[in-house]
C-alpha cells in the first residue's frame, strides 16, 4: 500500500527528460543540420560570375575576406582593408550600442524594480520602442535624423542649440552615432525586461543581511544583487551582442552601410555579399567567421557571468 504503482505515471515520469528535451532537440536538429552543412560547404566554394560555376576553392574565401592581397595597402598590415574597416565599424557599433543600452537598461530596471505605484504603466511605456517593427523604427529614425524635415534638427534649432542643419546621415561619424542612438532606443527595453525578470530572483533577506553587515548601497549591489543578476546579465548581454553583431534591419533601413562604407557592419556586409552580390561562397565564409566570433564572445561572457549563485 505504501508504494504507489501506477505504471503509466511512473513511465511518464521516467521519460521526463527525454520527453521534455527530445522535441526541442529534434526540432532544432531537423531544421539546422541541412542549412549548417550547406553553410560550411558553401564557405569553401566560389561562384564564378563568368562561368556561373560553383568551384571548390578550399579556404580561399576566408583568405580573400580577411587577409590583404599581395601589394595591398601596407599601412593596414596583413589584413584586408575592408575587413579592418568593417570590423572596426562593427566593434564601434556593437560596443557602444550594447554598453550604453546595458547601463541604461540596468538603471531603468533597478528603478522599475522599486515598489512604485503605476509601475505597470511605466513598464509598458518603457517596452514599447522594442515592440515596433525594427523596419519601422529604422525608418522613423531616418525620418527623425533627416537633415531638413527631421525632428532632431528641428528640435535642436527650436531650442537654439544649432543654427544650420546637421547632416546626420551624410557624415560617416554622425551616421554611426545615429545608428547607435536608434539601436539603443530599440533594444534597451530588451535589457530592461530580462534584468527585471532576473531581479525577481534576488532573495530579499540577503539585502537585510548585507545591510546589517554594514554594506553600502553600492556594496549591496555588488554582493547581493549582482551575483543573482548574473544569469540574467549573461542572457541579456549574450542575446544583445549576438543580435547586434548580426543586426541588419536598422542598418539596412537607415543607411544601407553608407555614406560610403562608414556604417557598413558585418551583417550588412554579409547580406550585401551573399544576397546583393550573389556571392554565396564569400557570404558563407563571412558567416562562418561571424559564427566563430560569436562563439568566442559568448564563451567569454559565460566565463564572466556564467555561474549561478546556488551552484557549488
Amino acid at each position, binding site marked *: 500500500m505504501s508504494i504507489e504503482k501506477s505504471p503509466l505515471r511512473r513511465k511518464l515520469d521516467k521519460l521526463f527528460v527525454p520527453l521534455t528535451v527530445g522535441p526541442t532537440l529534434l526540432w532544432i536538429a531537423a531544421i539546422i543540420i541541412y542549412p549548417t552543412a550547406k553553410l560550411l560547404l558553401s564557405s569553401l566554394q566560389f561562384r564564378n*560570375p*563568368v562561368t556561373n560555376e560553383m568551384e571548390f576553392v578550399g579556404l580561399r574565401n576566408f583568405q580573400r575576406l580577411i587577409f590583404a592581397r599581395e601589394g595591398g595597402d601596407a599601412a593596414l598590415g596583413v589584413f584586408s582593408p575592408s575587413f579592418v574597416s568593417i570590423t572596426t565599424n562593427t566593434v564601434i557599433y556593437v560596443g557602444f550600442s550594447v554598453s550604453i543600452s546595458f547601463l541604461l537598461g540596468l538603471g531603468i530596471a533597478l528603478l522599475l524594480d522599486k515598489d512604485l505605484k503605476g509601475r505597470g504603466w511605466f513598464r509598458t511605456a518603457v517596452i514599447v520602442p522594442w515592440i515596433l517593427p525594427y523596419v519601422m523604427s529604422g525608418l522613423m529614425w531616418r525620418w527623425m535624423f533627416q537633415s531638413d524635415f527631421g525632428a532632431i534638427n528641428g528640435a535642436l534649432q527650436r531650442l537654439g542649440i544649432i543654427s544650420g542643419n546637421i547632416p546626420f546621415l*551624410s557624415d560617416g561619424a554622425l551616421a554611426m552615432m545615429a545608428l547607435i542612438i536608434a539601436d539603443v532606443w530599440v533594444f534597451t527595453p530588451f535589457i530592461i525586461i530580462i534584468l527585471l525578470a532576473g531581479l525577481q530572483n534576488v532573495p530579499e533577506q540577503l539585502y537585510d543581511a548585507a545591510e546589517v553587515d554594514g554594506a553600502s548601497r553600492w556594496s549591496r549591489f555588488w554582493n547581493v544583487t549582482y551575483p543573482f543578476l548574473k544569469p540574467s546579465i549573461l542572457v541579456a548581454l549574450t542575446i544583445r551582442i549576438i543580435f547586434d553583431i548580426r543586426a541588419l534591419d536598422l542598418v539596412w533601413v537607415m543607411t544601407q552601410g553608407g555614406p560610403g562604407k562608414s556604417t557598413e557592419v558585418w551583417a550588412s556586409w554579409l547580406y550585401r555579399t551573399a*544576397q546583393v552580390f550573389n556571392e554565396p561562397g564569400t557570404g558563407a565564409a563571412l558567416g562562418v567567421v561571424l559564427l566563430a566570433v560569436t562563439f568566442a564572445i559568448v564563451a567569454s561572457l559565460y566565463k564572466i557571468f556564467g555561474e549561478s549563485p546556488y551552484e557549488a
Partner: protein
Amino acid sequence: SGGSDSSTEDGSGGDGSDGESSDGATTGTGSETMADEIVFYNAGSLEFDPGTEANIERFEEETGISVEVNEVPWSNLKTSLTTIWRNQDSTVDAFNGPTWWLADFVSSDWLEPIGLGDDHMSKFPDSLNELVQFDGQTYMAPEFGKWGSYLYDQQYLNDQGFDAPPDTWDEVLNQGEQLSQGDKSGFAFTWSGKSVFSFKQFLYQAGGQLFNDSYEPVFVEEGKEVLDFFNQLRERGITPDGMSSLGEGGIGDNFIAGQYATVESWTPLGARAIDEWDEGRIGSAKPPKGPESRATFQDTNGISVSAFSERKDAAKEFARFMTTRASSKNNMLVEGNPAVVPEVYEDEEVQSEYPSWLLEDMRFNLENAQSETYMAQPQVDDYLNEQLTPALLGNKDPEAALNDAYNNIERLYQDIGLL
C-alpha cells in the same frame, strides 16, 4: 489620376492609333496553350507605381490572364529574386527591375530570353536595346525611364537675375555660387548611396567610360575631372552640407520646399513640382554640357521573365504587353514616368498633359542617355561607391579614391577570370 484615366487610354490603345502591328496580334494565337495566371514581382507597392498598375489592369482585361502581383520592398527585391532563383524555384514568372541587374542575372542563367523580335524592339533607341541584349538575345523589355533630369526654381533664378539655368559645367559653378545664399543651395544631386550613378553621367559628360571592350577599367582620367568639378561645387558651398543625402525623399522634398535653386533628380519630380508649385515656377533643363557631351545616365525599368517559370508564354506575353507603345504612353500619362519610346513624346494626349519644354528635355535625355553593362555590376558599383563617397564629401583625395577603386575592380576582374 485614377481608373477613368486608364480606361480612356485603354480605348485609345485599342484603337491601334499608334499603328504597331504586333500589338494585340499574338494574343489570339497563344491563348489556348497559355497559362491563365502569372506571378509578377514588383519592386515596392503598386500604389507608387500607378502606371504599371493601370497597364496590368489593361493586360488582364485584354488577355484574360490574371496577374498576381507580389510587392517586394524596393531595396530587397534583388535579394528575394536571388534567393528564389538560386534554388531554381518557379515561384516567379516575371519581375520588374532596372537594366543594370541584367548582366548578373543573365550570366547566372536565371532569365529567359523574352524573344521579342525587332518588330517590338525597334521602337526603342539603340542605346537602350544594347543594354537589354546579350549574345543577340533580348532579356528585358524596357518599360519606363528613370534617368536623371535637371529641374530648377525658375522664379528664384529670375529673382537672382538669371533667365536660364546653367548650361555648362562652368556655368554651374559660376551661377551656383551666386545662387547659394542663406538657406538656399545652388545645386543638389540625388546621391543616396548611389553616388556611382551621378558619377557615371558626369563621367559620360566628360567623355569617359567605366570599362573598355576588354573589360579594363578606364575611368580614372576623366573621373578626376568629374571629381574636381564636384569638389569645386562643394568647396564653393554650392551643394548642401553632406552631399550624400536621403534620395528623392530628401532632395525632391527639399527642392519643393524651396531649399535648392537647381537639382539633378530622378523623375517624376517634375510632375510633382507642377502639382505643388505655382504655375510657371518650375523649369527644366538639359544636362549641363561637360567637356564632351550632355549625356545622362540611362536607367530604365523593364520586365524580364524567369528562366524557371513554368508559364513562360504568358509571362512573355505580359512583358510584351507592358512595353507596347500604348502601355508606355499610358504609364507616362498616369504616373509621369518618361516614356522609353521616343514617339510617345509626340502623342497629342501626352503633349496636352505636360508642358512642351519638359517633354523636350525628357526626350533629349532618352536619346542621349548612356550606360554600360558589365559583369559583377553590384560589386563594381560597390567598389566605386565605397571610394567616391568619401571623395565627394571631401574626406579622401579624389585621385587616391579613384585609384583604389580602379585597383579593387581590376583585382575583382582578375579573380573571376575576366582579366
